[in-house]
C-alpha cells in the first residue's frame, strides 16, 4: 500500500502493446467476418464494426479510469459489489426486464445497446475472492473456511443456469478454483469443490437437453451434420479450409451464412480461414504471451509482503481472460464441447469488450510501477516494484 510514485509509473508496456494489437485485429476481423451479414441484415456493412468501435472507445475510457484507481481503497466495495452483481443477475431473469436473445435471457436493454450482467459478475466475483481470500487466508487450512466460497459459487451457478449460460458457469468455477489454489489451500481440498462440481455439472448437463446434444455433437459432429453438429462442422471446415496460409483477408466463404455467429463466438474460425495457420497460430501465441505476462504480474506481487490481494486480483483477472480464451479456442477447433464463450478482445460484443478492457485496466493498474524484464514466467527475474 502507498507506493508513492505508482500513479506516475506507466503500466506494463508489453501488455499494453498486446492489448492494442489484439483489439485492432479484432476490429479488422469483425469487419471482415460481419460485413456481408451486416449488409444483409441492416443494409450497412459497417453496422457491427461501427458499434464495436464505439464499445472499444468506451471500454478504453473505462480501462483508463480503472488503471488509475486506488484498488486497495476499493476493497471496501468488494462484498457490496458482489451482492450488487448477484442482484443484477437475478433481475435479468425477471420476465419483462431481461432481454431474450437466441432463447437465453441474459441481457439488459439500454437504448440501442444491450448489456450482460454476467460480465459484471465476473469482475465482481474476482474482486471479492481476491479481497476475501487475502483477509481470510489463515482459515483456508480448515475445510469450513472454504464453505462461504462454495456457497457463493453455487448461487452464481444457479443464476447462470437460469440464463442458460453454462459457459460462464464453468468459467466462474474455474476461476474460483484457480484463486483458491493460489490462495494456498491444500491439494487434498480440491476433492471438495470437485465432489460438488461434478454432480452439479452432471445435473446441469442433464437438465437441459441442448447441452447434452452439444456435448455429443462435439464428440462426433458428423453424426448429425445438419443438426447439433452443424456449427462445429462449419467451424472445422472454416479452420481446415484456411490451410497453412489462409484464403486471404475478407475471402472467407464460410462466413457466407454457413458458419453461424461468424463475428461473435466463432470469429476465430474465420480468422483461421482467412489468415491460415500462420495468422491464427500467431494470434494464439499473442494470447499466450498476454496471459503469461498477466500471471507474471501476479507472481511479482505474490512475493511481496502485503501484495497478496493484488496478486490474487491480477491472477483472477488474467485467469478469467485466459480461461475464456482457451475455452473459445478449444470450442472453435473442436477440442471442447460447444459453449457460448466469446474470444476476449476479438469477438463482437459490447459487454464482453468493455469488461475485458476493464479487467485489463485492473491488470495495467497492478502492473504499474513494476520493473519487469521481458520475462514471462513467475520464477525467473524477480521483478522489482517501482520504488526501487
Amino acid at each position, binding site marked *: 500500500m502507498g507506493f508513492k510514485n505508482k500513479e506516475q509509473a506507466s503500466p506494463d508496456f508489453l501488455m499494453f502493446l498486446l492489448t492494442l494489437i489484439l483489439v485492432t485485429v479484432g476490429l479488422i476481423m469483425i469487419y471482415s467476418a460481419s460485413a456481408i451479414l451486416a449488409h444483409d441484415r441492416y443494409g450497412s456493412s459497417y453496422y457491427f464494426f461501427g458499434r464495436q468501435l464505439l464499445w472499444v472507445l468506451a471500454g478504453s475510457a473505462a480501462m483508463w479510469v480503472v488503471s488509475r484507481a486506488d484498488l486497495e481503497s476499493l476493497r471496501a466495495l468488494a462484498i457490496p459489489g458482489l451482492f450488487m452483481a448477484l442482484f443484477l443477475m437475478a433481475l435479468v431473469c425477471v420476465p419483462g426486464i431481461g432481454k431474450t436473445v437466441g432463447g437465453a435471457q441474459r441481457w439488459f436493454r439500454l437504448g440501442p445497446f444491450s448489456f450482460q450482467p454476467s460480465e459484471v459478475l465476473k469482475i465482481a466475483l474476482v474482486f471479492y475472492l481476491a479481497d476475501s481470500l487475502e483477509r481470510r*487466508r489463515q482459515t483456508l487450512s480448515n475445510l469450513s473456511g472454504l464453505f462461504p466460497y462454495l456457497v457463493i459459487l453455487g448461487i452464481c451457478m444457479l443464476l447462470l443456469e437460469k440464463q442458460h449460460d453454462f459457459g460462464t458457469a464453468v468459467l466462474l468455477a474455474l476461476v474460483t478454483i*484457480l484463486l483458491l489454489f493460489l490462495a494456498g489451500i491444500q491439494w487434498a481440498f480440491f476433492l471438495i469443490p470437485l465432489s460438488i462440481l461434478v454432480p452439479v455439472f452432471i445435473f446441469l448437463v442433464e437438465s437441459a437437453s441442448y447441452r447434452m446434444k452439444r456435448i455429443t455433437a462435439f464428440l462426433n459432429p458428423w453424426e448429425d451434420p445438419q443438426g447439433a453438429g452443424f456449427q462445429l462442422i462449419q467451424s472445422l471446415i472454416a479452420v481446415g*479450409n484456411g*490451410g497453412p496460409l489462409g484464403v486471404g483477408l475478407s475471402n472467407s466463404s464460410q462466413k457466407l451464412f454457413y458458419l453461424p455467429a461468424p463475428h461473435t463466438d466463432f470469429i476465430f474460425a474465420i480468422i483461421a480461414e482467412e489468415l491460415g*495457420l500462420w495468422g491464427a497460430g500467431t494470434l494464439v*501465441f499473442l494470447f499466450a504471451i498476454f496471459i503469461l505476462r498477466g*500471471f507474471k504480474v501476479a507472481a511479482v506481487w505474490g512475493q511481496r509482503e502485503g501484495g497478496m490481494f493484488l496478486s490474487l486480483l491480477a491472477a483472477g483477472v488474467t485467469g478469467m481472460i*485466459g480461461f475464456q480464451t*482457451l475455452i473459445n479456442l478449444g470450442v472453435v477447433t473442436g477440442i471442447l464441447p460447444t459453449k457460448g464463450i466469446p474470444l476476449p478482445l476479438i469477438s463482437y460484443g459490447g459487454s464482453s469488450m468493455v469488461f475485458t478492457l476493464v479487467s485489463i485496466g485492473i491488470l495495467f493498474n497492478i502492473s504499474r510501477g513494476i520493473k519487469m524484464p521481458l520475462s514471462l514466467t513467475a520464477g525467473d527475474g524477480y521483478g522489482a516494484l517501482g520504488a526501487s
Partner: protein
Amino acid sequence: MSGLRHYNQIQRRILLLQGALMASVLCVEGRLVYLQVFKHVEFRQLAYHQQYTPKETSPSRGVIEDRSGALLAMNIGLFNVCAHPNQITDKASTAEALSRALGTPYDEVLSRISGDKPFAWVARQVPYERSRAVESLKLQGVEASREQRRFYPDHEMAAHVLGFAGIDDQGLDGLEREYNNSLTGKSGLVLTERDARGRVVLSDNETKMAAVDGLNVVTTLDKTIQHIAQVELEKAYQKYRCKAASIAVMDPRTGEILALANCPNFDPNHFNEAPGEYWKDRMVNDEFEPGSTFKLVAAVGALEEGAVNEDDRFFCENGAYHTDYGRVVTDHEKYGWLTFREIFGYSSNIGMVKVAAKLGEKNLYRYCQRFGFGVTTGVDLPGEVSGILRPLDKWSGLSMTTIPYGYEVSTTPIQMLAAYAAIANGGVLMRPHVVKELVDSNGKVVREFEPQKIRRVCSPKTAKRITEMMKWVVEKGTGTAVALPSYDIAGKTGTAYKFMNGRYSKYDYVSSFIGFVPAENPQFAIYVSLDDPRGLYWGGYTAGPVFKEVAKRALVYDLVPGKDQAPAVAQGGGRHSVPSFKGLTREQSRWLAQESGLRIKFNGPGDRVVDQSLPAGGKLAPENNKPIKMVLTLGTPAASLAQGVMPDLRGKTKRQALALLAPLGVRVNFKGEGVVRSQFPPAGRTVRDGVPCDLSCEVPVAKTASGGGEGHS
C-alpha cells in the same frame, strides 16, 4: 517466515499454472496444425462441395442441314421461369410482380412460390418477352431459364430421314438416332459459388468445362428435290389411295441420297400424334418380294456372261409355261416369240425364266450377291434390314422359275435403288448414304463421308447395253407413260403380287418404277413404289408418272441440259465448269463448291475469297467421279476495288446468281428456295463491295423440260 513460504507457494503455483497454460496453448496450436495442414485438403473439399454447386450446362444439339445448308432440323429456345421459394422473403410482392409480368393469376403464382421449397416452376415455355420482363424485375429467388426444343421447320419434309428427337433431345429415329452421339455434344459444368442460403455469390463463376455443342449434320439431301419428290409421291398416294408409298432419289455417281420420302408421312414436331407405323422408313426398314424390277439381275448376268444377246429370241409360250416341277409361270399378256430386249421391255416372266436358265443358277446367285442382295447396303439410316436371299444350296427346283422375275427373294427398296444406280454408274455399285459431313459449331468439317464404292457389278459395256434395254422399256415397253420429250429415261417397271396369308394375293400389288435419267449421263437414279394402288395398278402407269414428274422437275431445277440443248458452259452454268468464288464468304463458297462438285480448302485470314487456285470458267472433266480440289485464298478485299452494275438476276438459280454477283463483292442474302423472283438493288444500279443484296427465291412451277432448258441456253 510463514509469509515467505507463502509467497514461494504462490510463485510455485503460478509457475505450475503457466506450465498448464502453455500445455493447453500447445494443444490448441497442435490442433490448428492438424486441421490446417494435415486435414487441409479434406476440409477444402468439404468447403468447396457445399459452396460450389455444380450445374450442368447443356450443349446445343447439332442442326441437320440439307446439302446447301438449308436447315432441316434446328433448335428453338423456350423460356421458363422458376423460383426458389426458400429465398423469397416477401412472397406477396414477388407474386404480384410475377403475376403482372407473366399475366398469370396472382393466386396461382403465390401458391407456386409459397412454402420453403428450394425449387418450383412458376411458368414453363413462356414467350421470350415474358421471360425478359421477369428477368428485368431482378426478383430475389426468381430465375428465368432457357431450354431448347427440337424443331423441324418444314414439318413433314424428309421426316423419315431426319427421324425425331425426344423431349430430352435423345435421337429416337432416323438421322437423329443414327447420328445421336455426334449431334448431342458434351454437356459442360459451371460451378457457381453460393452462400448457405443458396444465393449466388457475386464473384466470378468458376467455369470448369464449357459445353461443347453437338456437330451439325450436313446431309446429302437437296431440299428442292426432296420437296418435289415428296409432293409428287403424296399426289399419287392420294390419287391411287395406296396403303403406302416410297420414293428416293440418288446421285448414282456418288450414292448420295438427294431425296427420300414415304407415305404415310408424319410431322416429326408432333411425332407422338402419328401412329407408330407411320414412322417406318419403308425405303430401308421394309423388305418384300420386288417382282419384275428384279429382272435386272438375271438380265445383267446374262449379258455380262455372254449367255444371251439382246436380239436372241425366246418362245414365250403364249402366256403359260409349264415347267418341269409342275409349276406354271404366267405372263400378264400372251407373248409368242420375243427377243431378249422385248422380254425385258415387255417384262415377260416366261421369257426371263428362259433367259435365266441359259445363265444358270450358279451365275444367277452370283449376280444376286454382286448386286448386294441379302445383305444391308450400309446406308446410314437406322434399322436397315437385309432382305432374304437364300444361299444357293437352299434353292429348290422351283427357284429358277421364280427368282429371275423377283419372287422367292425379298429386297429392300434401297437395295433396288442401289442396284439400278450401279448400272447408271457404269457398273459400279455405290454405297447409298445420307450424310455428307459433320461440321462443328465453328463451321469446321470434322468428318467427311466420301462416296464409297462397294464393288463392280458388271463391265461398263454391259452397263451400257442394259441401259439401252432400259431405255427401250420407256420408249416401247411397259414404261412408255414415263417418257419425257427432251430426256432419255432408262428404267424398269415392276408389279409384284404381295404374298399374304400364305399365298400370293390376286388383288394386292406393289407397283414400282426404278430408273435413272438422263440415260446417257445419269444425274438421278429414282425409285418409286406404291403399295396397293387402287384403279390402275401396273407399275408403268402408277409409279411411272411419279418418276416422270420428279425426274422432270429435278432436271429442270438442276439445269441438266436436254438432248437437243448445248451443254452448259462457263459463267456459272452447268456442273462442269469452275465458278468464280471471288468475293464470296466462307459459307457461300462452301455452298457453291458443293453445287459444283468441288472440294475446297480455305487458306489465309479474312472472310472473303480473294483468289482461287483454279481459274473461273475452266472445264472440269465431266466423268470424273472424284471431286476436284481447289484452294481458296481468303483476305479482306480492298473496299473500293469491286464496283459494278447489278445484273438482272430474275429466273436465275442461286448458283448462277452467286456466280454473277461474285465479282461485285456484294453480300448476298437469299430468301426462300428455287430461282430468283425479285431482287434488291434492282438491275442496273451501281453497287459496290459489301452492299447487302437481297434475293427472294421461289421454287419454279414445273415447266416442260425444254422450257427449263431454254432459260439456260
